[in-house]
Protein backbone atom coordinates (compact mmCIF):
# COMPACT_ATOMS: atom_id res chain seq x y z
CA UNK A 1 0.00 0.00 0.00
CA UNK A 2 1.27 3.41 -0.96
CA UNK A 3 0.84 5.43 2.17
CA UNK A 4 2.32 8.60 0.75
CA UNK A 5 -0.09 8.48 -2.16
CA UNK A 6 -2.98 7.98 0.26
CA UNK A 7 -1.92 10.96 2.34
CA UNK A 8 -1.36 13.11 -0.71
CA UNK A 9 -4.83 12.32 -2.03
CA UNK A 10 -6.30 12.98 1.39
CA UNK A 11 -4.61 16.36 1.66
CA UNK A 12 -5.82 17.36 -1.76
CA UNK A 13 -9.32 16.32 -0.80
CA UNK A 14 -9.14 18.19 2.52
CA UNK A 15 -8.31 21.53 0.92
CA UNK A 16 -10.17 20.91 -2.32
CA UNK A 17 -13.29 22.68 -3.54
CA UNK A 18 -15.70 20.08 -2.20
CA UNK A 19 -14.39 20.43 1.34
CA UNK A 20 -14.86 24.18 0.96
CA UNK A 21 -18.42 23.70 -0.25
CA UNK A 22 -19.23 21.51 2.73
CA UNK A 23 -17.59 23.99 5.08
CA UNK A 24 -19.78 26.74 3.66
CA UNK A 25 -22.96 24.72 4.09
CA UNK A 26 -21.88 23.70 7.59
CA UNK A 27 -21.38 27.36 8.52
CA UNK A 28 -25.06 27.79 7.77
CA UNK A 29 -25.93 24.75 9.84
CA UNK A 30 -23.79 26.16 12.65
CA UNK A 31 -25.95 29.28 12.60
CA UNK A 32 -29.03 27.07 12.89
CA UNK A 33 -27.95 24.48 15.39
CA UNK A 34 -24.74 25.75 16.95
CA UNK A 35 -26.02 29.19 17.87
CA UNK A 36 -29.81 29.14 17.66
CA UNK A 37 -30.49 25.52 18.58
CA UNK A 38 -32.67 24.92 15.53
CA UNK A 39 -32.76 21.28 14.44
CA UNK A 40 -32.42 21.67 10.69
CA UNK A 41 -32.15 18.28 9.04
CA UNK A 42 -32.84 19.65 5.59
CA UNK A 43 -29.79 21.79 4.91
CA UNK A 44 -29.38 19.87 1.64
CA UNK A 45 -32.68 21.43 0.56
CA UNK A 46 -31.07 24.87 0.71
CA UNK A 47 -28.12 23.57 -1.29
CA UNK A 48 -30.55 22.18 -3.84
CA UNK A 49 -32.45 25.41 -4.39
CA UNK A 50 -29.19 27.35 -4.47
CA UNK A 51 -27.68 25.05 -7.05
CA UNK A 52 -30.77 25.00 -9.21
CA UNK A 53 -31.17 28.74 -8.84
CA UNK A 54 -27.89 29.11 -10.71
CA UNK A 55 -28.39 26.23 -13.14
CA UNK A 56 -31.95 27.05 -14.16
CA UNK A 57 -31.35 30.78 -14.47
CA UNK A 58 -28.33 30.39 -16.69
CA UNK A 59 -29.00 27.16 -18.53
CA UNK A 60 -32.74 27.42 -19.07
CA UNK A 61 -33.41 31.15 -19.11
CA UNK A 62 -30.07 32.41 -20.36
CA UNK A 63 -29.60 34.91 -17.52
CA UNK A 64 -26.14 36.00 -16.39
CA UNK A 65 -24.42 33.86 -13.76
CA UNK A 66 -24.51 36.65 -11.17
CA UNK A 67 -28.29 36.88 -11.49
CA UNK A 68 -28.36 33.11 -11.08
CA UNK A 69 -26.61 33.40 -7.73
CA UNK A 70 -29.10 36.04 -6.61
CA UNK A 71 -31.99 33.84 -7.66
CA UNK A 72 -30.44 30.93 -5.76
CA UNK A 73 -30.23 33.08 -2.65
CA UNK A 74 -33.80 34.30 -3.10
CA UNK A 75 -34.96 30.68 -3.39
CA UNK A 76 -33.23 29.90 -0.10
CA UNK A 77 -35.05 32.78 1.58
CA UNK A 78 -38.34 31.49 0.20
CA UNK A 79 -37.58 27.96 1.38
CA UNK A 80 -36.70 29.23 4.86
CA UNK A 81 -40.07 30.98 5.03
CA UNK A 82 -41.90 27.86 3.92
CA UNK A 83 -40.09 25.82 6.56
CA UNK A 84 -40.19 28.35 9.33
CA UNK A 85 -43.70 29.72 9.22
CA UNK A 86 -45.43 26.49 10.22
CA UNK A 87 -42.80 25.09 12.54
CA UNK A 88 -40.81 27.75 14.36
CA UNK A 89 -43.58 28.27 16.89
CA UNK A 90 -43.69 24.56 17.66
CA UNK A 91 -41.45 22.22 19.61
CA UNK A 92 -37.98 21.65 18.19
CA UNK A 93 -38.60 18.19 16.75
CA UNK A 94 -41.37 19.42 14.45
CA UNK A 95 -38.82 21.54 12.65
CA UNK A 96 -36.53 18.53 12.35
CA UNK A 97 -39.20 16.39 10.73
CA UNK A 98 -40.43 19.19 8.50
CA UNK A 99 -36.99 20.17 7.26
CA UNK A 100 -36.04 16.65 6.25
CA UNK A 101 -39.43 16.19 4.58
CA UNK A 102 -39.42 19.50 2.73
CA UNK A 103 -35.89 18.97 1.45
CA UNK A 104 -37.02 15.63 0.07
CA UNK A 105 -40.18 17.13 -1.45
CA UNK A 106 -38.07 19.80 -3.09
CA UNK A 107 -35.88 17.12 -4.64
CA UNK A 108 -38.96 15.27 -5.89
CA UNK A 109 -40.33 18.42 -7.45
CA UNK A 110 -37.08 19.44 -9.13
CA UNK A 111 -36.71 16.00 -10.68
CA UNK A 112 -40.37 15.68 -11.65
CA UNK A 113 -41.20 15.00 -15.28
CA UNK A 114 -43.55 17.95 -15.67
CA UNK A 115 -40.75 20.39 -14.90
CA UNK A 116 -38.37 18.66 -17.29
CA UNK A 117 -38.26 21.63 -19.64
CA UNK A 118 -37.06 23.85 -16.82
CA UNK A 119 -35.02 21.66 -14.49
CA UNK A 120 -34.02 18.89 -16.84
CA UNK A 121 -35.86 16.30 -14.72
CA UNK A 122 -33.76 13.40 -13.49
CA UNK A 123 -31.02 14.26 -15.97
CA UNK A 124 -30.46 17.70 -14.55
CA UNK A 125 -28.72 20.54 -16.36
CA UNK A 126 -25.26 21.29 -17.72
CA UNK A 127 -23.25 24.15 -19.17
CA UNK A 128 -24.25 26.99 -16.92
CA UNK A 129 -20.88 27.81 -15.40
CA UNK A 130 -18.92 28.91 -18.47
CA UNK A 131 -18.94 32.52 -17.32
CA UNK A 132 -17.45 31.54 -13.99
CA UNK A 133 -14.45 29.92 -15.67
CA UNK A 134 -14.09 32.81 -18.07
CA UNK A 135 -13.52 35.05 -15.07
CA UNK A 136 -10.61 32.86 -14.01
CA UNK A 137 -7.66 35.24 -13.54
CA UNK A 138 -5.09 32.43 -13.27
CA UNK A 139 -3.33 31.64 -16.56
CA UNK A 140 -3.81 28.00 -17.39
CA UNK A 141 -1.17 25.65 -16.08
CA UNK A 142 -0.43 23.76 -12.92
CA UNK A 143 0.06 25.40 -9.58
CA UNK A 144 1.66 24.00 -6.48
CA UNK A 145 4.47 21.54 -6.05
CA UNK A 146 4.83 17.82 -6.66
CA UNK A 147 1.92 15.88 -5.27
CA UNK A 148 0.14 19.00 -4.08
CA UNK A 149 -0.67 20.71 -7.32
CA UNK A 150 -3.90 21.97 -8.78
CA UNK A 151 -4.94 23.03 -12.24
CA UNK A 152 -5.72 26.69 -12.86
CA UNK A 153 -9.39 25.77 -12.97
CA UNK A 154 -9.33 24.02 -9.60
CA UNK A 155 -7.30 26.82 -8.09
CA UNK A 156 -9.91 29.36 -9.22
CA UNK A 157 -12.81 27.36 -7.80
CA UNK A 158 -10.90 26.85 -4.56
CA UNK A 159 -10.00 30.52 -4.27
CA UNK A 160 -13.60 31.61 -4.68
CA UNK A 161 -15.11 28.94 -2.45
CA UNK A 162 -12.59 29.22 0.37
CA UNK A 163 -12.90 32.99 -0.02
CA UNK A 164 -16.62 32.66 0.58
CA UNK A 165 -15.87 30.46 3.60
CA UNK A 166 -13.59 33.16 4.96
CA UNK A 167 -16.08 35.95 4.40
CA UNK A 168 -18.85 33.75 5.79
CA UNK A 169 -16.90 33.02 8.95
CA UNK A 170 -16.16 36.72 9.42
CA UNK A 171 -19.82 37.67 8.96
CA UNK A 172 -20.80 34.95 11.39
CA UNK A 173 -18.28 36.19 13.96
CA UNK A 174 -19.56 39.75 13.70
CA UNK A 175 -23.17 38.66 14.01
CA UNK A 176 -22.58 36.41 16.98
CA UNK A 177 -20.50 38.92 18.89
CA UNK A 178 -23.23 41.54 18.73
CA UNK A 179 -26.38 42.07 20.77
CA UNK A 180 -28.22 40.24 17.97
CA UNK A 181 -26.02 37.20 18.50
CA UNK A 182 -26.64 37.40 22.23
CA UNK A 183 -30.37 37.08 21.66
CA UNK A 184 -29.77 34.19 19.26
CA UNK A 185 -27.63 32.36 21.80
CA UNK A 186 -30.21 33.11 24.47
CA UNK A 187 -32.84 31.40 22.32
CA UNK A 188 -30.62 28.34 22.08
CA UNK A 189 -30.49 28.18 25.86
CA UNK A 190 -34.14 28.82 26.62
CA UNK A 191 -36.49 30.53 24.25
CA UNK A 192 -39.21 31.06 26.85
CA UNK A 193 -36.83 33.05 29.01
CA UNK A 194 -35.87 35.23 26.06
CA UNK A 195 -39.52 35.74 25.18
CA UNK A 196 -40.28 36.75 28.76
CA UNK A 197 -37.69 39.51 28.35
CA UNK A 198 -39.61 41.07 25.48
CA UNK A 199 -37.76 39.66 22.47
CA UNK A 200 -39.71 38.40 19.49
CA UNK A 201 -38.23 34.91 19.43
CA UNK A 202 -40.08 33.86 16.28
CA UNK A 203 -38.55 36.67 14.23
CA UNK A 204 -35.05 35.92 15.49
CA UNK A 205 -35.41 32.23 14.70
CA UNK A 206 -36.66 33.07 11.26
CA UNK A 207 -33.72 35.40 10.64
CA UNK A 208 -31.35 32.66 11.75
CA UNK A 209 -33.06 30.12 9.49
CA UNK A 210 -32.78 32.48 6.53
CA UNK A 211 -29.13 33.38 7.11
CA UNK A 212 -28.07 29.76 7.56
CA UNK A 213 -30.15 28.81 4.55
CA UNK A 214 -28.46 31.42 2.38
CA UNK A 215 -25.09 29.90 3.29
CA UNK A 216 -26.50 26.54 2.26
CA UNK A 217 -27.65 28.00 -1.06
CA UNK A 218 -24.23 29.53 -1.73
CA UNK A 219 -22.65 26.17 -1.00
CA UNK A 220 -25.05 24.48 -3.40
CA UNK A 221 -24.32 27.04 -6.08
CA UNK A 222 -20.55 26.61 -5.72
CA UNK A 223 -20.97 22.82 -5.70
CA UNK A 224 -22.68 22.79 -9.09
CA UNK A 225 -20.37 25.44 -10.52
CA UNK A 226 -17.48 23.19 -9.56
CA UNK A 227 -19.14 20.12 -11.09
CA UNK A 228 -20.40 22.03 -14.11
CA UNK A 229 -23.53 19.85 -13.96
CA UNK A 230 -26.43 19.44 -11.59
CA UNK A 231 -28.66 16.44 -11.00
CA UNK A 232 -31.44 16.28 -8.43
CA UNK A 233 -30.32 12.98 -6.96
CA UNK A 234 -27.05 14.29 -5.69
CA UNK A 235 -29.05 16.21 -3.09
CA UNK A 236 -29.95 13.23 -0.95
CA UNK A 237 -30.67 13.50 2.78
CA UNK A 238 -27.27 11.89 3.42
CA UNK A 239 -25.64 15.18 2.48
CA UNK A 240 -27.33 16.83 5.44
CA UNK A 241 -26.11 14.08 7.73
CA UNK A 242 -22.57 14.62 6.45
CA UNK A 243 -22.93 18.28 7.33
CA UNK A 244 -24.07 17.37 10.82
CA UNK A 245 -21.12 15.07 11.26
CA UNK A 246 -18.81 17.85 10.06
CA UNK A 247 -20.34 20.36 12.43
CA UNK A 248 -20.24 18.06 15.43
CA UNK A 249 -16.69 16.97 14.58
CA UNK A 250 -15.41 20.53 14.36
CA UNK A 251 -17.43 21.89 17.24
CA UNK A 252 -20.91 23.39 17.11
CA UNK A 253 -21.21 26.96 18.28
CA UNK A 254 -17.62 27.85 17.32
CA UNK A 255 -16.91 30.16 14.43
CA UNK A 256 -14.23 27.92 12.95
CA UNK A 257 -15.87 24.64 13.98
CA UNK A 258 -17.48 23.92 10.61
CA UNK A 259 -14.32 24.84 8.68
CA UNK A 260 -12.06 22.62 10.73
CA UNK A 261 -14.69 19.88 10.73
CA UNK A 262 -14.93 19.87 6.96
CA UNK A 263 -11.18 19.75 6.41
CA UNK A 264 -10.65 16.94 8.91
CA UNK A 265 -13.69 15.04 7.71
CA UNK A 266 -12.69 15.07 4.05
CA UNK A 267 -9.16 14.09 4.95
CA UNK A 268 -10.43 11.09 6.92
CA UNK A 269 -13.00 10.13 4.30
CA UNK A 270 -10.39 10.16 1.59
CA UNK A 271 -8.03 8.05 3.68
CA UNK A 272 -10.67 5.42 4.47
CA UNK A 273 -11.74 5.38 0.85
CA UNK A 274 -8.25 4.83 -0.52
CA UNK A 275 -7.38 2.27 2.12
CA UNK A 276 -10.60 0.33 1.52
CA UNK A 277 -10.06 0.47 -2.23
CA UNK A 278 -6.53 -0.79 -1.95
CA UNK A 279 -7.51 -3.55 0.46
CA UNK A 280 -10.24 -4.69 -1.89
CA UNK A 281 -7.98 -4.48 -4.90
CA UNK A 282 -5.44 -6.68 -3.15
CA UNK A 283 -8.17 -9.09 -2.00
CA UNK A 284 -7.49 -8.49 1.68
CA UNK A 285 -11.14 -7.61 2.09
CA UNK A 286 -13.43 -9.80 0.04
CA UNK A 287 -16.85 -9.26 1.55
CA UNK A 288 -17.19 -5.73 0.21
CA UNK A 289 -17.41 -4.98 -3.49
CA UNK A 290 -15.68 -1.80 -4.61
CA UNK A 291 -19.05 -0.45 -5.71
CA UNK A 292 -20.16 -0.66 -2.10
CA UNK A 293 -17.43 1.56 -0.70
CA UNK A 294 -19.86 4.48 -0.77
CA UNK A 295 -22.19 2.52 1.49
CA UNK A 296 -19.43 1.58 3.88
CA UNK A 297 -18.43 5.20 4.04
CA UNK A 298 -21.97 6.31 4.87
CA UNK A 299 -22.06 3.72 7.63
CA UNK A 300 -18.77 5.02 9.02
CA UNK A 301 -20.10 8.58 9.02
CA UNK A 302 -23.08 7.23 10.93
CA UNK A 303 -20.77 5.67 13.51
CA UNK A 304 -18.82 8.92 13.75
CA UNK A 305 -22.03 10.83 14.38
CA UNK A 306 -23.06 8.40 17.12
CA UNK A 307 -19.74 8.35 18.89
CA UNK A 308 -19.19 12.10 18.66
CA UNK A 309 -22.56 13.10 20.02
CA UNK A 310 -22.36 10.69 22.93
CA UNK A 311 -18.73 10.99 23.95
CA UNK A 312 -17.51 14.30 22.60
CA UNK A 313 -20.49 16.56 21.91
CA UNK A 314 -18.22 19.61 21.93
CA UNK A 315 -16.23 18.36 18.93
CA UNK A 316 -12.57 19.13 18.33
CA UNK A 317 -12.45 22.73 19.45
CA UNK A 318 -15.54 23.13 21.61
CA UNK A 319 -15.43 23.82 25.30
CA UNK A 320 -16.38 20.67 27.17
CA UNK A 321 -17.45 22.49 30.31
CA UNK A 322 -19.75 24.72 28.32
CA UNK A 323 -21.25 21.73 26.58
CA UNK A 324 -21.85 19.83 29.79
CA UNK A 325 -23.70 22.69 31.40
CA UNK A 326 -26.24 22.44 28.65
CA UNK A 327 -27.00 18.77 29.20
CA UNK A 328 -30.30 19.01 31.02
Amino acid at each position, binding site marked *: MDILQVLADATRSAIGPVAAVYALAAIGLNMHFGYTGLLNFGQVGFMLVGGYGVAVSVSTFGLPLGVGFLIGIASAVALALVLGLPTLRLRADYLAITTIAVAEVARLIYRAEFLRDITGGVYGLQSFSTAFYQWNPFPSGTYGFGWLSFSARDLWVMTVTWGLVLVGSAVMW*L*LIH*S*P*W*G*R*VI*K*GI*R*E*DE*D*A*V*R*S*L*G*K*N*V*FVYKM*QSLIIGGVFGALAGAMLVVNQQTITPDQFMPQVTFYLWAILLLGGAGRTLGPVLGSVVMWFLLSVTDSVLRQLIATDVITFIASSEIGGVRHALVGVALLVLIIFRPQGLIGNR*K*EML*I*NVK
Partner: protein
Amino acid sequence: MSSDVNGATVDRMAGVDPLPGVAKPDPILVVDGVRRSFGGLTAVDVEHLEVQRGTITALIGPNGAGKSTLFNLLTGFDRVDSGTWTFQGKQLNGLGGHRIAREGMVRTFQLTKALTRLTVMENMLLAAPGQTGERILGSFLRPQWRKQEEANRARAEQLLERFKLLAKKDEMAGSLSGGQRKLLEMARALMVNPTMIMLDEPMAGVNPALVQSLLEHITALRDEGMTVLFVEHDMDVIMGISDWIVVLSEGKVIAEGRPSDIRADQRVIDAYLGSGYEESGREPQTDTGESHE
Protein backbone atom coordinates in the same frame (compact mmCIF):
# COMPACT_ATOMS: atom_id res chain seq x y z
CA MET B 1 -39.50 35.26 60.76
CA SER B 2 -41.48 37.67 58.70
CA SER B 3 -42.19 40.13 61.45
CA ASP B 4 -39.71 42.75 60.37
CA VAL B 5 -40.64 42.48 56.72
CA ASN B 6 -44.21 42.69 57.83
CA GLY B 7 -43.67 46.26 58.70
CA ALA B 8 -46.47 46.84 56.23
CA THR B 9 -48.43 48.54 58.90
CA VAL B 10 -49.78 50.79 56.19
CA ASP B 11 -52.91 49.12 54.82
CA ARG B 12 -52.51 49.71 51.12
CA MET B 13 -55.84 48.11 50.51
CA ALA B 14 -57.86 50.18 52.96
CA GLY B 15 -61.57 50.21 52.27
CA VAL B 16 -61.57 47.20 49.96
CA ASP B 17 -63.94 44.41 50.93
CA PRO B 18 -62.46 40.93 51.08
CA LEU B 19 -64.77 39.44 48.45
CA PRO B 20 -63.91 37.41 45.34
CA GLY B 21 -63.82 39.68 42.29
CA VAL B 22 -64.04 42.87 44.29
CA ALA B 23 -63.18 46.17 42.55
CA LYS B 24 -59.96 47.99 43.59
CA PRO B 25 -59.45 51.75 43.74
CA ASP B 26 -56.56 51.83 41.25
CA PRO B 27 -56.32 48.52 39.38
CA ILE B 28 -53.28 48.01 37.13
CA LEU B 29 -54.46 44.62 35.89
CA VAL B 30 -58.11 43.69 35.25
CA VAL B 31 -59.07 40.14 34.28
CA ASP B 32 -62.48 39.29 32.85
CA GLY B 33 -63.89 35.83 32.18
CA VAL B 34 -60.58 34.16 31.44
CA ARG B 35 -61.06 30.46 30.79
CA ARG B 36 -58.70 27.67 29.77
CA SER B 37 -59.33 23.93 29.72
CA PHE B 38 -57.14 20.95 28.90
CA GLY B 39 -58.97 18.06 27.31
CA GLY B 40 -62.25 18.61 29.13
CA LEU B 41 -60.62 19.56 32.41
CA THR B 42 -61.13 23.22 33.24
CA ALA B 43 -57.84 24.53 34.56
CA VAL B 44 -58.71 28.21 34.87
CA ASP B 45 -62.08 29.93 35.04
CA VAL B 46 -61.69 33.43 36.49
CA GLU B 47 -64.83 35.60 36.41
CA HIS B 48 -63.30 38.88 37.45
CA LEU B 49 -60.07 39.83 39.13
CA GLU B 50 -58.32 43.14 39.75
CA VAL B 51 -54.79 43.77 40.95
CA GLN B 52 -54.10 47.00 42.79
CA ARG B 53 -51.23 49.15 41.56
CA GLY B 54 -48.17 49.39 43.82
CA THR B 55 -48.97 46.40 45.99
CA ILE B 56 -47.69 42.92 46.55
CA THR B 57 -50.48 40.55 45.60
CA ALA B 58 -50.09 36.85 46.22
CA LEU B 59 -51.83 34.14 44.24
CA ILE B 60 -52.26 30.99 46.28
CA GLY B 61 -54.17 27.76 46.10
CA PRO B 62 -53.77 24.02 46.50
CA ASN B 63 -51.88 21.95 43.96
CA GLY B 64 -53.56 22.02 40.60
CA ALA B 65 -55.65 25.06 41.39
CA GLY B 66 -54.56 26.63 38.13
CA LYS B 67 -52.20 29.27 39.53
CA SER B 68 -49.39 28.68 37.11
CA THR B 69 -51.80 28.27 34.22
CA LEU B 70 -53.39 31.63 35.02
CA PHE B 71 -49.90 33.11 35.21
CA ASN B 72 -49.02 31.69 31.81
CA LEU B 73 -52.25 32.99 30.30
CA LEU B 74 -51.82 36.51 31.64
CA THR B 75 -48.22 36.76 30.48
CA GLY B 76 -48.96 35.43 26.99
CA PHE B 77 -47.26 32.06 27.42
CA ASP B 78 -50.47 30.14 26.83
CA ARG B 79 -53.61 30.95 24.91
CA VAL B 80 -56.97 31.49 26.59
CA ASP B 81 -60.08 29.69 25.36
CA SER B 82 -62.05 32.84 26.07
CA GLY B 83 -61.86 36.02 28.11
CA THR B 84 -60.00 39.32 28.14
CA TRP B 85 -57.61 41.19 30.39
CA THR B 86 -56.23 44.69 30.41
CA PHE B 87 -52.96 46.03 31.79
CA GLN B 88 -52.74 49.77 32.44
CA GLY B 89 -55.88 50.12 30.37
CA LYS B 90 -54.46 48.27 27.37
CA GLN B 91 -56.11 45.08 26.24
CA LEU B 92 -53.56 42.28 26.20
CA ASN B 93 -55.37 39.19 25.00
CA GLY B 94 -53.98 37.77 21.80
CA LEU B 95 -50.57 39.37 22.29
CA GLY B 96 -47.51 37.14 22.39
CA GLY B 97 -45.35 36.81 25.48
CA HIS B 98 -42.73 39.23 24.19
CA ARG B 99 -45.31 41.95 23.46
CA ILE B 100 -46.74 41.68 26.94
CA ALA B 101 -43.25 41.92 28.42
CA ARG B 102 -42.66 45.08 26.39
CA GLU B 103 -45.88 46.53 27.80
CA GLY B 104 -44.18 46.39 31.18
CA MET B 105 -45.48 43.15 32.62
CA VAL B 106 -42.42 40.91 33.06
CA ARG B 107 -42.46 37.43 34.49
CA THR B 108 -40.07 34.93 35.99
CA PHE B 109 -40.39 31.16 36.00
CA GLN B 110 -40.93 28.57 38.69
CA LEU B 111 -38.00 26.51 37.43
CA THR B 112 -35.43 29.18 36.87
CA LYS B 113 -34.52 29.82 33.30
CA ALA B 114 -30.99 31.11 33.56
CA LEU B 115 -29.43 31.14 30.10
CA THR B 116 -26.79 28.70 31.19
CA ARG B 117 -24.17 29.06 28.47
CA LEU B 118 -24.18 32.84 28.61
CA THR B 119 -22.33 34.76 31.29
CA VAL B 120 -24.20 36.48 34.09
CA MET B 121 -23.49 39.83 32.43
CA GLU B 122 -24.73 38.59 29.06
CA ASN B 123 -27.91 37.42 30.75
CA MET B 124 -28.41 40.93 32.06
CA LEU B 125 -27.53 42.75 28.84
CA LEU B 126 -29.83 40.52 26.84
CA ALA B 127 -32.77 41.82 28.83
CA ALA B 128 -32.20 45.52 28.12
CA PRO B 129 -34.99 46.89 25.93
CA GLY B 130 -34.70 48.78 22.65
CA GLN B 131 -31.16 47.83 21.62
CA THR B 132 -30.22 48.88 18.09
CA GLY B 133 -27.58 46.15 17.95
CA GLU B 134 -30.29 43.56 18.34
CA ARG B 135 -31.56 44.29 14.87
CA ILE B 136 -29.93 42.15 12.25
CA LEU B 137 -28.58 45.01 10.18
CA GLY B 138 -27.85 47.13 13.21
CA SER B 139 -25.63 44.40 14.55
CA PHE B 140 -22.98 45.17 11.92
CA LEU B 141 -22.80 48.84 12.90
CA ARG B 142 -20.64 48.37 15.95
CA PRO B 143 -20.02 52.07 16.71
CA GLN B 144 -23.77 52.61 16.67
CA TRP B 145 -24.56 50.26 19.50
CA ARG B 146 -21.30 50.57 21.46
CA LYS B 147 -22.55 53.51 23.49
CA GLN B 148 -25.90 51.98 24.27
CA GLU B 149 -24.11 48.81 25.31
CA GLU B 150 -21.93 50.75 27.76
CA ALA B 151 -24.97 52.41 29.33
CA ASN B 152 -26.73 49.07 29.67
CA ARG B 153 -23.60 47.56 31.18
CA ALA B 154 -23.49 50.26 33.83
CA ARG B 155 -27.13 49.73 34.72
CA ALA B 156 -26.63 45.95 34.79
CA GLU B 157 -23.71 46.36 37.19
CA GLN B 158 -25.87 48.42 39.54
CA LEU B 159 -28.56 45.77 39.54
CA LEU B 160 -26.03 42.96 40.01
CA GLU B 161 -24.54 44.87 42.91
CA ARG B 162 -27.95 45.16 44.48
CA PHE B 163 -28.54 41.41 44.14
CA LYS B 164 -24.99 40.64 45.30
CA LEU B 165 -24.02 39.01 42.01
CA LEU B 166 -21.48 41.54 40.76
CA ALA B 167 -18.54 39.30 41.63
CA LYS B 168 -19.98 36.60 39.38
CA LYS B 169 -20.64 38.77 36.37
CA ASP B 170 -18.20 37.04 34.04
CA GLU B 171 -19.09 33.50 35.06
CA MET B 172 -21.41 31.25 33.10
CA ALA B 173 -24.91 31.48 34.47
CA GLY B 174 -24.99 27.69 34.51
CA SER B 175 -22.36 27.65 37.23
CA LEU B 176 -24.51 29.60 39.72
CA SER B 177 -26.29 27.93 42.62
CA GLY B 178 -30.06 27.55 42.59
CA GLY B 179 -30.60 30.54 44.83
CA GLN B 180 -28.23 32.75 42.85
CA ARG B 181 -30.12 31.82 39.69
CA LYS B 182 -33.35 33.02 41.30
CA LEU B 183 -31.65 36.31 42.13
CA LEU B 184 -30.23 36.58 38.62
CA GLU B 185 -33.63 35.95 37.14
CA MET B 186 -35.14 38.70 39.23
CA ALA B 187 -32.34 41.12 38.40
CA ARG B 188 -32.68 40.25 34.72
CA ALA B 189 -36.43 40.89 34.81
CA LEU B 190 -35.73 44.33 36.30
CA MET B 191 -33.38 45.06 33.40
CA VAL B 192 -36.51 45.19 31.19
CA ASN B 193 -37.79 48.20 33.23
CA PRO B 194 -41.12 46.64 34.17
CA THR B 195 -44.06 48.36 35.86
CA MET B 196 -45.37 45.06 37.11
CA ILE B 197 -43.34 42.01 37.90
CA MET B 198 -44.85 38.54 37.96
CA LEU B 199 -42.93 36.03 40.08
CA ASP B 200 -43.79 32.35 39.70
CA GLU B 201 -42.92 30.65 43.01
CA PRO B 202 -39.83 32.73 43.67
CA MET B 203 -39.03 30.86 46.89
CA ALA B 204 -39.38 27.32 45.51
CA GLY B 205 -36.23 25.32 46.08
CA VAL B 206 -34.34 28.17 47.72
CA ASN B 207 -32.54 27.62 51.01
CA PRO B 208 -34.04 29.37 54.03
CA ALA B 209 -31.14 31.79 54.44
CA LEU B 210 -31.79 33.15 50.98
CA VAL B 211 -35.56 33.32 51.39
CA GLN B 212 -35.18 36.25 53.74
CA SER B 213 -33.03 38.15 51.28
CA LEU B 214 -35.46 37.43 48.43
CA LEU B 215 -38.34 38.72 50.54
CA GLU B 216 -36.47 41.93 51.22
CA HIS B 217 -35.86 42.39 47.53
CA ILE B 218 -39.55 41.91 46.79
CA THR B 219 -40.73 44.41 49.37
CA ALA B 220 -38.08 46.85 48.20
CA LEU B 221 -39.47 46.61 44.68
CA ARG B 222 -42.92 47.48 45.93
CA ASP B 223 -41.58 50.35 47.96
CA GLU B 224 -40.02 51.70 44.77
CA GLY B 225 -43.50 51.76 43.24
CA MET B 226 -43.55 48.51 41.32
CA THR B 227 -46.52 46.18 41.36
CA VAL B 228 -45.72 42.60 42.29
CA LEU B 229 -47.93 39.58 41.65
CA PHE B 230 -46.54 36.30 42.78
CA VAL B 231 -47.51 32.67 43.06
CA GLU B 232 -46.38 30.96 46.20
CA HIS B 233 -46.91 27.78 48.14
CA ASP B 234 -45.39 28.62 51.49
CA MET B 235 -48.19 30.14 53.62
CA ASP B 236 -45.82 31.80 56.10
CA VAL B 237 -44.07 33.69 53.35
CA ILE B 238 -47.32 34.84 51.84
CA MET B 239 -48.82 36.05 55.07
CA GLY B 240 -45.67 37.93 55.91
CA ILE B 241 -45.26 40.20 52.92
CA SER B 242 -48.49 40.32 50.93
CA ASP B 243 -50.76 43.32 50.89
CA TRP B 244 -53.49 41.27 49.31
CA ILE B 245 -54.06 37.59 48.71
CA VAL B 246 -56.09 35.90 45.97
CA VAL B 247 -57.04 32.28 46.55
CA LEU B 248 -57.60 30.03 43.58
CA SER B 249 -59.18 26.60 43.76
CA GLU B 250 -60.08 24.40 40.81
CA GLY B 251 -59.43 27.33 38.53
CA LYS B 252 -61.82 29.74 40.27
CA VAL B 253 -61.16 32.64 42.60
CA ILE B 254 -62.73 31.47 45.86
CA ALA B 255 -61.49 34.20 48.17
CA GLU B 256 -59.64 37.52 48.24
CA GLY B 257 -58.50 39.66 51.10
CA ARG B 258 -55.80 40.88 53.42
CA PRO B 259 -53.70 38.15 55.05
CA SER B 260 -55.80 38.41 58.20
CA ASP B 261 -59.02 37.92 56.21
CA ILE B 262 -57.62 34.89 54.43
CA ARG B 263 -56.38 33.26 57.62
CA ALA B 264 -59.90 33.30 58.95
CA ASP B 265 -61.67 32.27 55.75
CA GLN B 266 -63.31 28.88 56.12
CA ARG B 267 -63.40 28.22 52.37
CA VAL B 268 -59.66 28.65 52.13
CA ILE B 269 -59.05 26.24 54.96
CA ASP B 270 -61.40 23.76 53.31
CA ALA B 271 -59.71 24.19 49.97
CA TYR B 272 -56.27 23.60 51.41
CA LEU B 273 -57.11 20.90 53.90
CA GLY B 274 -60.00 19.36 52.01
CA SER B 275 -59.49 18.96 48.32
CA GLY B 276 -55.77 19.19 48.60
CA TYR B 277 -55.38 16.07 50.65
CA GLU B 278 -58.50 13.97 50.32
CA GLU B 279 -58.29 13.74 46.57
CA SER B 280 -54.59 13.21 46.56
CA GLY B 281 -55.18 10.42 44.06
CA ARG B 282 -55.79 12.77 41.19
CA GLU B 283 -53.73 15.57 42.55
CA PRO B 284 -50.53 14.90 40.57
CA GLN B 285 -52.43 14.69 37.34
CA THR B 286 -53.92 18.13 37.54
CA ASP B 287 -50.59 19.37 38.73
CA THR B 288 -48.58 18.34 35.71
CA GLY B 289 -48.64 21.73 34.08
CA GLU B 290 -47.01 23.29 37.06
CA SER B 291 -44.36 20.72 37.70
CA HIS B 292 -43.39 20.55 34.06
CA GLU B 293 -42.68 24.13 33.35
